[in-house]
């Protein structure tokens, strides 16, 4: 904790605090973290979160694989990441302690549920001796709180089984944290009423658990200090807390309004993209049509069908689902229909680590289809940016009559930050007209001279009856054609159409000087770590700049020249060097790769260390 000022002996003023809640996957840690996040956001802190949960819904209770965590960083100033390391770890059982305590710096605070440190649970966590008594935690500030017992006492007299009572202990922990960080219980109490109002006993149990935790903090002599993190100074506006998946769903809803077309979303449930389907399924009053397909292929097939019919059509999935959709993506390229394919990336290959973050689907996005099959690729960098890039991906798809890949990932998809809510008037007009019958022969593959896009002639339009499909088509007329030169010409058209989008996207921006010793180039969810690292390095007087690429195919027109103005280009990414490979191939620039695939976001410190190593002449 960065102590900035001590106002009185029992209240410390802090600029930023990072808390990690960890427990069994059945302990409600995601909910606890979310409640703390809402409270901090509504209070006015800048926030950044990192939910980290296992792939199993309920791994064996108390086991190491069953540990679920939620890290939140809240701050009085602008922050970009959920924090490298927690200041405080709340561990609900030995397994949670074991898997998380290593991330805590010396002097960090650990609040444990002492009741959970039974011989049985210690055994499940493979502790030979009790860490609370064997001295192994002496470098930390450990608070042993008998959370289960205290919580059970607070709930005495309620008509609940002891198991049901135990399920509320996460709210005891939450109440305690609210007291420790001077937070109001009101938002959570309101949430309890809204969620459990119809089940009075459950509502009462959760209220009592929360208040008991808070009261315990007040009355115990265990804690001598509470901590205060003042409001952050954010640009004026109305804010809400938003995850990347929420922003993606809202962004496409907004895009449908901006395009003046009904939204169609075809999808098959897959972690970590499913939330987008859930959310869009709730927007029926907007005319949104969601379709839970029988498989990934059907999801994109239906999406292509809806696009053909004139809808703003998209499909959402994660990497393994994109693999299944690949052939259909080729069909969309060949038929030149507008749609968006959302890939909320997770760690691969194959099933990989379904709930963990990775950026290893860039090659798949840029190259992963048979034939010469160019497709624009965009990648939002933060949860809030998922909104603007949903609109942008839709704009490109409609204007250029092309499928567009939208690469999010598990980190920004599930992670949250405050979002300044845009007004509807701020939305760009991305509408495009349908083709109508003119005086001359209709050319289904005639091209707009500027964009090279073909007309969108939707069924129901009199006089434009025509046939499209996966077979190569004659330039202009669009009939099936096997001519060698025509195939070459059409292939070049498809390439040039997508390449031309570079003229219609913003130039690459840069953080720091336009030239110098080191340019760090990143994309997607590593934005926060890279930007924070660049800030730190620049503050130390080092010649380091940061460029974060949102348009991965085609690249912004000025990117190549920008790269060449730096002595060294370093590309940190959560894969083993995919963007650096594409940059090298595209620009003949000796871009160095820093790739890590641990299923976790970068720590700021490791980027700083790597940059320092490179600046010192390392390779």
């Amino acid at each position, binding site marked *: 904790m960065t102590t900035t000022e001590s106002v009185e002996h029992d209240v410390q003023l802090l600029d930023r605090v990072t808390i990690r809640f960890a427990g069994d996957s059945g302990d409600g840690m995601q909910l606890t973290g979310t409640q703390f996040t809402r409270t901090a956001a*509504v209070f006015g802190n800048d926030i950044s979160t990192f939910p980290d949960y296992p792939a199993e819904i309920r791994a064996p209770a108390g086991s190491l694989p069953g540990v679920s965590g939620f890290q939140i960083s809240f701050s009085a100033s602008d922050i970009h990441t959920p924090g490298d390391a927690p200041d405080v770890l709340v561990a609900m059982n030995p397994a949670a302690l074991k898997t998380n305590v290593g991330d805590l710096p010396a002097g960090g605070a650990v609040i444990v549920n002492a009741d959970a440190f039974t011989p049985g649970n210690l055994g499940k966590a493979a502790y030979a001796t009790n860490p609370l008594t064997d001295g192994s935690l002496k470098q930390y500030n450990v608070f042993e709180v008998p959370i289960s017992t205290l919580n059970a006492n607070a709930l005495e007299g309620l008509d609940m089984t002891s198991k049901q009572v135990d399920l509320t202990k996460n709210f005891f922990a939450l109440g305690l944290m609210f007291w420790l960080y001077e937070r109001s219980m009101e938002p959570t109490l309101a949430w309890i009423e809204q969620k459990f109002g119809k089940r009075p006993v459950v509502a009462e149990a959760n209220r009592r658990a929360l208040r008991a935790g808070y009261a315990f903090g007040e009355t115990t002599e265990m804690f001598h200090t509470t901590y205060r993190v003042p409001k952050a100074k954010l640009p004026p506006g109305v804010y809400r807390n938003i995850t990347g998946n929420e922003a993606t769903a809202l962004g496409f*809803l907004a895009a449908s309004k901006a395009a003046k077309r009904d939204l169609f979303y075809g999808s098959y449930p897959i972690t970590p993209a499913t939330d987008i389907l859930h959310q869009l399924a709730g927007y029926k009053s907007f005319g949104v049509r969601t379709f839970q397909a*029988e498989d990934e292929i059907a999801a994109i097939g239906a999406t292509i069908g809806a696009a053909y019919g004139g809808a703003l059509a998209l499909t959402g999935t994660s990497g393994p689902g994109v693999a299944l959709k690949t052939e259909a993506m080729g069909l969309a390229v060949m038929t030149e229909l507008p749609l968006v394919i959302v890939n909320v990336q997770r760690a691969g290959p194959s099933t990989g680590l379904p709930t963990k973050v990775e950026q290893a689907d860039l090659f798949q996005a840029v190259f992963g289809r048979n034939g010469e099959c160019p497709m624009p690729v965009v990648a939002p960098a933060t949860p809030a940016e998922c909104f603007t890039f949903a609109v942008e991906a839709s704009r490109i798809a409609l204007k250029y009559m092309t499928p567009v890949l939208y690469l999010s990932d598990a980190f920004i998809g599930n992670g949250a930050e405050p979002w300044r809510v845009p007004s509807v008037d701020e939305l760009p007009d991305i509408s495009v007209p349908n083709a109508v019958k003119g005086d001359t022969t209709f050319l289904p593959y005639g091209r707009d001279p500027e964009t090279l896009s073909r007309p969108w002639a939707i069924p129901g339009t009199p006089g434009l*009856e025509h046939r499209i499909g996966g077979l190569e088509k004659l330039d202009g007329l669009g009939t099936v054609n096997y001519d060698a030169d025509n195939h070459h010409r059409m292939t070049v058209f498809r390439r040039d159409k997508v390449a031309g989008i570079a003229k219609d996207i913003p130039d690459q921006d840069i953080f720091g000087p336009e030239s110098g010793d080191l340019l760090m180039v990143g994309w997607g969810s590593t934005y926060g770590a890279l930007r924070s690292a660049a800030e730190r390095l620049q503050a130390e007087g080092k010649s380091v700049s940061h460029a974060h690429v949102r348009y991965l195919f085609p690249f912004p027109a000025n990117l190549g020249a920008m790269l060449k103005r730096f002595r060294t280009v370093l590309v940190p990414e959560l894969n083993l060097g995919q963007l650096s490979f594409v940059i090298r191939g595209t620009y003949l620039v000796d871009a160095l790769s820093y790739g890590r695939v641990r299923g976790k976001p970068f720590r700021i410190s490791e980027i700083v260390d790597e940059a320092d190593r490179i600046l010192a002449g390392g390779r």
Partner: protein
Amino acid sequence: MTETLDPAAPEPIKLTRKDFVADAEVRWCPGCGDYSILAQTQKVMPDFGVPKENIVFISGIGCSGRLPYYMNTYGFHSIHGRAATLATGLKSARPDLMVWVITGDGDALSIGGNHFLHSMRRNVDFTMIMHNNRIYGLTKGQTSPTSEFGKRTKSTPMGSIDRPVMPLTLALAAEATFVARTVDTHTEHLARTLEKAGRHRGASFVEVLQNCNIFNDGAWRDFTERDVRDDRMLVLEHGKPLIFGKDRDKGIRLRGLHPEVVTIGRDGVTEADLLVHDQHAEDPYLALILSRMFWPEFPVPVGVLRDVERPTHSDLVDAQIEQAKATSGEGDLAKVLLSGETWTVA
């Protein structure tokens, strides 16, 4: 089942077969059964009274996949097995269109088997015409899901070891609301069946027994040839007893759970003993029995096995949208953007 497909049309549209013939050279092998299916399809199109711009033909891959190119309507030649998925999305976004899915035995039942099942159970309002020639023709002769057990093909030189599926049984099991069978060379029956299928609201499945004169010549010859068909096929008619035979003297009777062939007038059998066809039966038992009957044990049933009414997929999609609008009003984007807890920074 004769509702107008385009109630909004100001006046009946008078089109002819020629209006539906596209300006494209038909490229099937001479003698292919697909020519007949195309011709009858073009012939019945004007009967629906639907403007041709409101009609879409969607196909997968295989010889049948070329059919949309020859129809002067909107057409989409998609990828292998997936035509039903495109049709589902199109029909969801555009319930106003009349959608036809053209497929084959490999396209629908092998690579597209999953979509066949799910589009049927959803009752997507389209008509699926499955050209069944019991062979992969476009890849020059490999065993298909409907090929006979033991069939020798290029890929099964010692005979196929896979049992064939029965398409009509599959369609019924998948809850299709209209299930019929016809034959490429029985042009009048083919046209009549296509018309009935086209008029049905909901998922219609028509199996057309089709000959591939190059890679599987005589696929269905044993019972479809003119001289034997009366004795070896059973033409289904709603409300009529199951009678067949050149002399109309044979019938189908139920013994326990099993159908059996009987001769009217022999062993005391009268017409009253025979099963009576009911294509509108809500339960699928009779249709399932019919779907399992096949030559040589039984005459092969052709005609409509099942025709029942259920809300279509797009009916239900639209109803939920209307219900949502009625409950919470037309969606308000500004309100949704500001949903959840918000706070103001001055």
